[in-house]
């Protein structure tokens, strides 16, 4: 199983934020969800992969080739859906498509027309007059019409209604059926990932927290709920993050086996959701600042 994206020691510093030493691999043929709170570095990372931002340090490989040297060839195989509209707003959908199509060697007009119909995209409507959902649909129609082997999507589901949100997730699942296509998408909404993601990459404060199979995550982490009397100084160190209330606490432990052994008889032990893993990790890192 090869890596469609391989990042090695990627660092980038801004005035108030830095991505630090990110090394990870995105597996070919799978859907990888990129999660993290606002300002964690998800968009910066995607921009680096897309060649929009240059890293201060580190190496990016796409499809096994050095991305800096092979950017044009690599991008021909990438479908990019941005979190913001990147198209010329005063152009119509039809004109925008006319602008984009000639640049892709594998552009398929029939496929585009199929998606235009499926998404009910009005060809004569200006991009600026499209709703957020329609803009995403147009980006997606473009991304899917040039035979992209890798879809990179930055917050594609934000601002979408629940019906299209589901449709989109189904579409993405269909897209990777031939096991050669890969998808990376960033989101705040971890329930989207619960539905379709095979791998989860979690970034917090510019650092990689983990890059794991979704299924193994729940086996690794443990959510503990119990009374506050259980929390002495040593016990607190076992937790990645803790939320205390007047009557008790709930917290996340990174070592499920150890956690279960310790709390099995004294507290409630549950399998955490992705959202809980994200929440407690961020909370824990804030507490350690």
């Amino acid at each position: 199983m090869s890596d469609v994206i391989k990042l090695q020691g990627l660092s980038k510093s801004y005035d108030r934020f830095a991505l630090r030493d990110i090394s990870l691999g995105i597996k070919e043929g799978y859907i990888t969800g990129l999660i993290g709170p606002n300002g964690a570095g998800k968009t910066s990372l995607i921009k680096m992969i897309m060649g929009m931002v240059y890293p201060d340090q580190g190496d990016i490989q796409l499809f096994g080739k050095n991305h800096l040297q092979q950017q044009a060839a690599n991008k021909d195989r990438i479908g990019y859906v941005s979190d913001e509209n990147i198209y010329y707003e005063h152009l119509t959908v039809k004109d925008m498509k006319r602008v984009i199509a000639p640049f892709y060697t594998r552009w398929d007009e029939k496929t585009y027309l199929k998606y235009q119909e499926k998404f009910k995209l009005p060809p004569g409507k200006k991009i600026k007059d499209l709703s957020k959902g329609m803009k995403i649909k147009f980006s997606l129609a473009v991304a899917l019409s040039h035979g992209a082997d890798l879809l990179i999507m930055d917050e594609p589901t934000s601002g979408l209604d629940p019906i299209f949100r589901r449709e989109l997730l189904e579409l993405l699942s269909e897209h990777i059926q031939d096991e050669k296509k890969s998808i990376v998408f960033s989101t705040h909404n971890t329930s989207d990932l619960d539905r379709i993601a095979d791998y989860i990459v979690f970034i917090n404060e510019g650092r990689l927290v983990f890059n794991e199979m979704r299924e193994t995550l729940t086996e690794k982490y443990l959510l503990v709920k119990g009374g506050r009397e259980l929390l002495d100084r040593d016990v607190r160190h076992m937790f990645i993050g803790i939320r205390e209330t007047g009557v008790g606490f709930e917290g996340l432990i990174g070592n499920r086996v150890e956690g279960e052994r310790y709390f099995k008889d004294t507290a409630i032990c549950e399998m955490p959701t992705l959202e809980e893993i994200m929440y407690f990790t961020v909370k824990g890192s804030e507490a350690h600042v």
Partner: protein
Amino acid sequence: MYSSFYLIRKDFILTRKYLLLLLLFYMVIGYSNLESYIVSALFPSMLMLMNACSLDVQHNNQRFLVSLPLPRHQLVLAKYLSLLPYAAISLTCTLLIYLAGVATGRTIEPIAWRELLLVIACFPLLASFYFPLYYWLGQKGMQIVNMIFMMLVMIGYPAIPSVNKKFPGLFDWINSATTDNILLWAIGGMAYLFFIYCSYLISLRVFVKKDI
């Protein structure tokens, strides 16, 4: 090379609507100031260029351009190559104004080709200052840069006759058609191309490593 063609085509699709209005406006103004139709030949090309460049940096449009399967130097090269069609449109419009003047009997003088081509040739020269600033400043500084360049074109318009008065030798040299100054023309031409090439290299250096 095909990519450059499609990028230039993209600029024309973007500016299509403004273009028709702009050229119509220019031709009406040019015809009503027929005595100085040559010096105003710089206007349409410069306006078309600034318009296309402004649209590329608005909103997140540069992110779109960089997401295309093209090396960044291709984006810069296409902008420099787009000077040719803009200059050709300027030339065509100016000729149409002249022909309209001849047809209506408002001018009987033969067309001053040298002056006309010289003014048209000033456009790439001006653009060679414009482009590095455009790539360097991006969206934030472009409005100021556009304003400065428009002022330069507008100030340059009435200034040309005064240059003629101050440096009559220059215009005599331009107007002389003797073959003994071919070498000077060749050196001037080479220097002209070299200057544009230097501007291209600077723009490339600025844009290729720029974070979008």
